[in-house]
């Protein structure tokens, strides 16, 4: 038999065994998704309502405690959901060892951008 490996088909299918984890990722994806439905709709509705207004109006809007809180929650939920989703996409299509580095890079990038957005929001809300 000129097979590349002499491992049995069952051993190949069993691989390294079950990781016995994965449900937390599943729950986090759903939780952030449920949170994002009202938050994103609020955001889109606000943009639509304020379309055409100037800088001063924008600052006045984002200064309100409700808008600031919603924006921060939106950034947290959005980037967490995005990190989870992008991780799944990379796991699906990237099969080389680059996968681990790519997942780490995506996660760090998402959380970094979230912090950037939150700081910018707070800067406008609390600044002079």
């Amino acid at each position, binding site marked *: 038999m000129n097979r*590349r490996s002499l491992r049995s088909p069952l051993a190949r299918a069993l691989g390294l065994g079950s990781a016995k984890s994965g449900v937390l990722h599943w729950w986090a994806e*759903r939780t952030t*998704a449920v949170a994002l439905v009202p938050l994103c709709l609020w955001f*889109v509705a606000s943009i639509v309502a304020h379309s055409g207004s100037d*800088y001063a109006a924008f600052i006045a809007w984002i200064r309100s405690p409700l808008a600031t809180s919603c924006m921060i929650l939106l950034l947290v939920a959005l*980037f967490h959901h*995005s990190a989870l*989703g992008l991780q799944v996409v990379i796991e699906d299509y990237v099969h080389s060892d680059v996968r681990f580095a790519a997942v780490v890079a995506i996660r760090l990038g998402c959380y970094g951008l979230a912090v950037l957005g939150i700081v910018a929001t707070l800067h*406008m809300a609390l600044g002079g």
Partner: protein
Amino acid sequence: MNRTDNGNSASARPRPLSPNIQIYRPQLTSVLSIANRITGLILSLGAVGLVIWLSAAAAGPRAYGVVQSVIGSWAGQIVLFGCTFAFFLHLCGGIRHLVWDTVHGFELRSIYISGWTVVFCSVALAVTAWVIAGWPQ
């Protein structure tokens, strides 16, 4: 698992793989699923844009004005409309997924009805949002 035919030939010729995405028929199931993924990727880029926009606003009226003029340009408006449509498609598709997580709506008839609903609703919502946004005050 690349066994040769009978193991006699010295050259271990691997077996061919039958075509998959090259010949498999696109159906509402697979098309809406890949659309949900593509719109998710677009929205991830949109999230980066959101942070750029917020940072520009925090930097002051001049930076904000620059970003607003980019958004207001022809290309910017097309990208913005694309993002809006992507957002509503991903939103409706996401709600469809959340319903599936409760193990409801798995009969083929329900899958197709909910699928077409997602398509039509996202188009309608995207157009509505833009009409309202552009309505002269």
